[in-house]
């Protein structure tokens, strides 16, 4: 079996072996019409009908019938992970990188509880995924059966919706609803819990082409009167600002947003989730805002007089203390697909509920028709002010250091990959440095856990991205602490020959914890030192990958060039960069402080 598996892994990454899947015999599943199908067949056929490429999963008792049907088909590929959390993360990353629904399959009980972190991560970042979970047979539900857990109850607070299928006749429609709900409106994860007896019950199968739900009809078009008011307000602005979040990326509206910004000549800032929604190398882009945002972005956000917020939600890491933010008078236009995100933390003057792409397209048309133009003199004065803020050069760091600076590694990664890589990250200092120093010009290139802040996502995220884009350069920027949270996936990468490049910024600390302890806890580094680290080079090698340890700044670029060279294109490279243990992320807005009250590197 392992030999066959390896061949299949290579085949589907190089894209040559669609049909040499091990034992993947074809049957009526492909084109025929079953009069009757088992629940397991229905699950598999629904997934295939949705055009799913990959299902990330892990088998177990309650899903064995489904796995048996997966064995018999070759319309989609199953990727066997080493822990259910990684299955959901990989499906989530696939969705982030492609815009299509990611799919994961796990067994009941511990399969579900392991998946919960992945589901909650996707929920916080509004990522469309469908997670099919096994459940004990219906007569056993509530009997404390082996591997039983109340899946619908345990996942309810971290899903967009969930279903427990109690009758095989409802299964196909439920699967259709799951994909529909996950991918429309404000996207999010949907769980379909399928008891084992449902997987062998039979019914006539027909996959519905579409589904109507009287209780679920997300708004698409923006309100025309509100959009007119918004355009008028933008044209009257003297110190305008455009603030964009993950909604611009998820709503595939980066092109419209960029067009709007260019037409108006207004400054743009992105949230952590919005990186790539407007090109970072564009002069109008002020970089990320928020707790670790740039000086110019945060100052402009605080002092603007008209703010256009698009697909963003004014969260605590973005605007800091809301009372401090509200001290400055400004009029706010807020475009979002989710009405509950509007006027939640900050009062808004012009709310526009709708799909961001549709709304921006309509606003562009209105702007083009408008006779007025923005006040050029006022805008010039505003840009002059912004350039003064930008001149602070808030992202400067010591380039003469004899120890590797983490920022330098990210900058060099940008050079080596020509700014065109897909970059995943874990959570902590390295995540912030990746966000600050890798200039994302395109959407869906930056894959990270923004809302939940889940350490351990980086490696499984990179797997999902690389499978979605086999020819792309995929880098996972991580730390020595985060990478250990899902390190078992090096084995999955071996099985499927997933040639990602892991950039570990190894400072032997949980860096962000250490930074907070230094600033706010009198440098008492309680349990943040990462002792007893493995030899990452040998660890990578033991999985059949390539390991590199880089200790000097002068070796950084050469090592990166080698890792991304054509010779190693097919290989996973694990790079262990020994970085400065004392480096901190700047600028920083302390929790509870105002957005313009930043600590800058030079002030320490």
């Amino acid at each position, binding site marked *: 079996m392992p030999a066959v598996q390896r061949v299949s892994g290579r085949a589907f990454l190089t894209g040559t072996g669609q049909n040499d899947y091990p034992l993947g015999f074809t049957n009526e599943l492909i084109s025929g019409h079953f009069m009757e199908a088992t629940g397991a067949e229905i699950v598999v056929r629904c997934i295939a009908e949705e055009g799913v490429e990959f299902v990330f999963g892990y088998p177990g008792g309650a899903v064995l019938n489904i796995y048996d049907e997966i064995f018999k088909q070759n319309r989609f590929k199953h990727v066997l992970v080493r822990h259910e959390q990684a299955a959901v993360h990989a499906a989530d990353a696939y969705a982030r990188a492609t815009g299509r629904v990611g799919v994961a399959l796990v067994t009941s009980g511990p399969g579900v509880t392991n998946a919960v972190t992945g589901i909650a991560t996707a929920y916080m970042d509004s990522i469309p995924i469908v997670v099919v979970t096994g459940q004990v047979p219906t007569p056993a539900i509530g009997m404390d059966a082996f591997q039983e857990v109340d899946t*619908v*109850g345990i996942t*309810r*607070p971290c899903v*967009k*919706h969930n279903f*427990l299928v*109690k009758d095989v006749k409802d299964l196909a429609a439920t699967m259709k609803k799951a994909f529909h*709900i996950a991918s429309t409106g404000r996207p999010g994860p949907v769980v379909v819990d399928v008891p084992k007896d449902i997987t062998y019950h039979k019914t006539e199968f027909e996959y519905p082409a579409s589904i109507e*739900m*009287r*209780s*679920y009809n997300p708004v698409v078009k923006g309100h025309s009167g509100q959009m007119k008011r918004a355009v008028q307000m933008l044209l009257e602005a003297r110190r305008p600002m455009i603030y964009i979040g993950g909604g611009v990326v998820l709503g595939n509206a980066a092109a419209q947003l960029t067009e709007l910004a260019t037409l108006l000549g207004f400054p743009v800032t992105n949230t952590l989730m919005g990186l790539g929604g407007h090109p970072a190398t564009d002069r109008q882009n002020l970089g990320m805002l928020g707790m670790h945002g740039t000086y110019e972005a945060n100052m402009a956000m605080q002092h603007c007089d008209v703010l256009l917020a698009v697909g963003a939600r004014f969260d605590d890491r973005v605007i800091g203390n809301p009372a401090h933010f509200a001290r400055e008078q400004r009029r706010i236009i807020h475009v979002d697909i*989710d*009405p*509950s995100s509007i*006027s*939640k933390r900050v*009062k808004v003057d012009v709310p526009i509920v709708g799909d961001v792409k549709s709304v921006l397209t309509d606003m562009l048309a209105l702007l083009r028709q408008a006779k007025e133009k923005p006040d050029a003199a006022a805008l010039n004065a505003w840009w002059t002010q912004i350039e003064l803020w930008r001149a602070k050069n808030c992202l400067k760091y010591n380039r003469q250091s004899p120890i590797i600076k983490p920022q330098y590694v990210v900058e060099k990664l940008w050079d080596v990959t020509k700014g065109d890589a897909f970059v995943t990250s874990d959570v902590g200092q390295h995540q912030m440095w990746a966000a600050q120093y890798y200039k994302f010009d395109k959407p869906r290139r930056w894959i990270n856990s923004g809302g939940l802040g889940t350490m351990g996502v980086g490696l499984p995220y990179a797997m999902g991205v690389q499978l979605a884009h086999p020819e792309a350069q995929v880098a996972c920027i991580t730390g020595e602490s985060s990478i250990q949270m899902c390190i078992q996936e090096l084995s999955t990468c071996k099985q499927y020959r997933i040639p990602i490049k892991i950039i570990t910024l190894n400072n032997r600390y949980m860096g962000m914890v250490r930074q907070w302890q230094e600033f706010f806890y009198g440098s008492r580094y309680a349990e943040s030192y990462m002792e007893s680290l493995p030899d990452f080079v040998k660890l990578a090698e033991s999985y059949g990958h390539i390991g590199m340890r880089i200790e000097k700044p002068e070796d950084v670029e050469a090592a990166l060039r080698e890792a991304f060279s054509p010779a190693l294109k097919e290989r996973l490279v694990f790079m262990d960069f020994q970085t400065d243990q004392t480096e901190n992320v700047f600028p920083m807005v302390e929790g509870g402080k105002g957005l313009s009250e930043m600590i800058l590197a030079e002030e320490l």
Partner: protein
Amino acid sequence: MNNNHHRHIISLLMENEAGALSRVAGLFSARAYNIESLTVAPTEDATLSRMTIVTVGSEDIIEQITKQLNKLIDVIKVMDLTEGRHIERELMLVKVKAVGAGREEMKRTADIFRGRIIDVTDSTYTIELTGTGSKLDAFLEAIDPAFIIETVRTGASGIGRGERSLKA
């Protein structure tokens, strides 16, 4: 932001699905919203449930509550009854001691509140009362608390006046 807290009666129509109630209850606990009372039952259309929630919050919180309720996939319609003219009713059953001179007094008080005595023993009455929550509160204040054996209240149900209605 507006911080004056007021009592609101929120009425919602939702799919009569297993777990629908727990989605609403879970939303209130997860987001730390108050629930004073919650009642739910199927409507004349058995696929629909009608729920009445009494909650207290500032205008901003009530706005969030209605938005978050609307976001639940099973919820079809949400209406804040207190935004317009409406009728509110609650049913209460009170079991009281009814002995000696107090027995006649208890009957008189129940009559004043248009209560009905629906169960009688030689030492107790069980009184049925309907009305607004504040009327039921007033009755409980009017009788000697030492006489109360137990009280059961349904929580408020509400409906809009006149043409104002909540339909799927």
